[in-house]
Each structure stands twice: as C-alpha cells, then as structure tokens.
C-alpha cells in the first residue's frame, strides 16, 4: 500500500506560509536565532480563539489549515502531531504565575494551553474532528514518531486521511537555557556564512510543518512517502552509510535512482561531518540541498526538510536558496532526506514523485 502526501503547510523563518511555496531567495537573517515569519493568522483562525493561542499553537494551526486546504480535505480521520518542547511559552506563563502567586489564584487559560497536545487538540476542536488524536513527545524523533504512527495506521486500512505534522517554538527563556548547553554559535553569523562555517555550534530555529497523508492518489497529491526510519546513536559514520544502504534496499531504491540528497547541515563543524561522509560515500556525485540555513536547528526540523522535499518534487524544481552543491537533474524522481540532531537522533525519509 502506497502512502501519498496530499497537502502540505509550513510556517517557518522563511515566508513559507505566504502562498505555501518555498521562496526563491532566503529571507536574510543574522545572529544565532531565527524567528518564524508569521502570517496574518486571522485568515485561518477566529479572533475569539486567537486571543488564547500562543505562537506555537497559531503556527501549528496555520500549517494544518494550509495543508488541509491544499489537500482539499475538510476533516481528516485522525490528527497526529510531534513536538519536542510543546507549548513552552504558556508553560512559562503558568509556572511563573504559580511561583509569583504562591500557587493561588491561577488562571486556567495558560494551564490549558501549556500541554504538549494542545496544538493537536486545538486543530481537532476547530475542525470538529473526533477521530484518533495523538501527540508524540520523543525529543528529536517527535516528528518521525508522528509520521511513523500515521503510516502504520494508514497501512491498517481503516482510515483514509491523516493530518500529521510537527511544531516547536523558541522562546526567550528556552533560547537562553539552550544557549547554556553550548549548541549555538558564539559569534555573529548570516544565512550566507552558516553552511560554510567550520566552527562549533549552529543557529536556533523554530517552525511548524503539516502534511495530509492518504492512501489514494488524487489530483492534489504532492509526492509519495516511500520510507522512513530512525537511528539512535549510530556507532559511527561507517554505520550510518550502511544504515542508509539498508534503508534504500528495503525500499527498492538504488543509489542511482536518487535525484536529490537533502540533508540537515547546520554549520556545526562536528555535526556536519556526518553529512559530508554520506555526501562523499554512498551519495557521492549526487546533487545536495540543505535546509537548516532556512529554518534553523530545532528537534523537529526534519519536518521542514520533508516539507521542502515535497515542494521540490511537486514543483520539479529546486530553489537556488536550497542548493548546496551539484547540478539538479531535469527530472526529479526520488529524494532522500537525511537529518540528525546533536549527532544522536538520525532519521531518513524517502520521497518519490507521483
């Protein structure tokens, strides 16, 4: 049974929510933090609901609405999301009030909106969707877990369309805390410099990407989701090459069939060595596109990579802003997406043209 991507939607530090397409040029940024470019949410969300929503909820709902619109689906059979950090902003508001007010007179809104499954719940409420609703909070495998669950459910054959996606926000608090872990660059860096960087650290990002998955190919179908796998703490670079080899073999895809290799290079020298190794071995000679200079690094960034891969296959062109090296072939048939987070959480996604 094939699984098709019927619609996509994305809110990211690029203008992806405007026109639901990958812009040809990068929206310039400077510094160690990328903030989402936010559209006017009132086009999708009632003003009475917006007032209670924090940024990540609005981003998630907007991405969901965009993907549903594109797929021509009013109400999916299930909603499955992935998030590593959940609704951080409202969690901060609630915890701050709890401390400042000595656990008394706490308002309900911040608490209700602070749980990790708020986005999936909010989408379900807005759509009147009473089907399966689940949220995966599996660190940097949150998106992949949501995707895997969606694929397994669709393969059972009981549901026809599933809205799946991932969203994570960056707040001032989370950025400051994450900065202490020494994962971001210390000096100034621009979108043009990031991928050429040979120093430690990357840039922080955020965003939401949603997909409508189904088992039937329709007029709006964007791509086929051919395969997905996750690899936790692979033993070394040779092992990742072997894993990619096995993954492709399991999905009847040879190296020569891959038209484009998309990877999660993020400017962190030691992390990028993994991508370099794959580019120089199993994907040698393949054109390479990247996406972290567009969305920044965050645990569910692979969802942005998959969104970009879908758009590339649907439009049959790779934006100049995304190309890293090589020549793009005339016809794009299969795209392999390889992403890793902090060198521990590795994932592979294989997309095919429809």
């Amino acid at each position, binding site marked *: 049974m094939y699984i098709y991507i019927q619609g996509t939607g994305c809110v990211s530090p690029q203008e992806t929510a405007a026109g639901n397409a990958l812009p040809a040029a990068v929206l310039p940024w400077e510094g160690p933090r990328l903030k989402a470019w936010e559209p006017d949410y009132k086009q999708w969300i009632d003003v009475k609901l917006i007032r209670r929503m924090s940024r990540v909820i609005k981003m998630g709902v907007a991405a969901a609405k965009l993907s549903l619109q594109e797929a021509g689906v009013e109400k999916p059979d299930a909603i499955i999301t992935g998030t590593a950090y959940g609704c951080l902003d409202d969690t901060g508001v609630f915890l701050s009030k709890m401390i400042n007010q000595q656990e008394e*007179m706490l308002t309900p809104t911040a608490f209700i909106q602070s749980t990790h499954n708020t986005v999936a719940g909010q989408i379900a409420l807005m759509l009147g969707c009473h089907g399966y609703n689940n949220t995966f909070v599996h660190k940097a495998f949150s998106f992949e877990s949501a995707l895997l669950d969606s694929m397994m459910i669709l393969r059972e054959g009981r549901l026809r369309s599933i809205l799946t996606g991932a969203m994570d926000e960056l707040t001032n608090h989370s950025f400051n805390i994450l900065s202490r872990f020494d994962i971001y660059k210390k000096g100034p860096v621009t979108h043009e410099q990031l991928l050429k960087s040979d120093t430690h650290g990357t840039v922080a990002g955020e965003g939401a990407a949603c997909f409508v998955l189904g088992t039937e190919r329709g007029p709006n179908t964007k791509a086929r989701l051919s395969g997905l796998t996750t690899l936790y703490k692979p033993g070394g670079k040779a092992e990742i090459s072997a894993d990619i080899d096995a993954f492709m073999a399991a999905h009847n895809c040879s190296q020569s069939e891959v038209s484009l290799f998309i990877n999660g290079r993020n400017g962190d020298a030691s992390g990028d060595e993994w991508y370099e190794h794959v580019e120089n071995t199993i994907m040698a000679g393949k054109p390479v596109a990247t996406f972290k200079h567009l969305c920044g690094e965050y645990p569910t960034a692979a969802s942005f990579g998959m969104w970009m891969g879908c758009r590339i296959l649907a439009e049959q062109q790779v934006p100049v802003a995304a190309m890293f090296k090589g020549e793009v072939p005339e016809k794009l048939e299969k795209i392999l997406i390889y992403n890793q987070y902090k060198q521990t959480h590795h994932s592979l996604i294989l997309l095919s043209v429809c």
Partner: protein
Amino acid sequence: MEKLMAALKAQIVEQLNLQEVKPEEIGDDQPLFKDGLGLDSIDALEIIVLLQQHYGIRIANPEQGPEIFHSVRTIAEFITAHQTAK
C-alpha cells in the same frame, strides 16, 4: 459605580486578552456571554480569578454565577454589595 465599571472593563479586556475590543466599547449592560461579548466558560473562570485578585472576592455559591456575570454592571453591583457588607 461608573469608575468601578470603567476599571472592570479594562481589567476584563486585559485578563481575557480581548485583542479586538476596547474597554470603552463594552456596554454597561451588554451581556458578556453568548450573543453579547461572546465570552465562554473559560472566560468565566478567568473573571472569577480576576475578582479574587483585584477585589478579594470569592464567589461562595456557583449558582449565582450567571446572575453576577451577566454584564459589567451586575459584576460592579456585586462588588459594591460585597464591599459594603464588609
């Protein structure tokens, strides 16, 4: 009473994050829920907290809620009555 109602309107707009509403646009006798200002049950909880925080008032009988929270004027009257009783 007028001063109290003006203060209440500003507090309601702020506490409920009514982005599209200015305090002076809320009528003194305008129903706050359903077809009026369109508030819902979560907002009712927020207003209960607001009364506790700003006026030190706890609503002892929840059945009084619909009557007290009907409009800004009824809330103001409830606050005044409570403060007078003290």
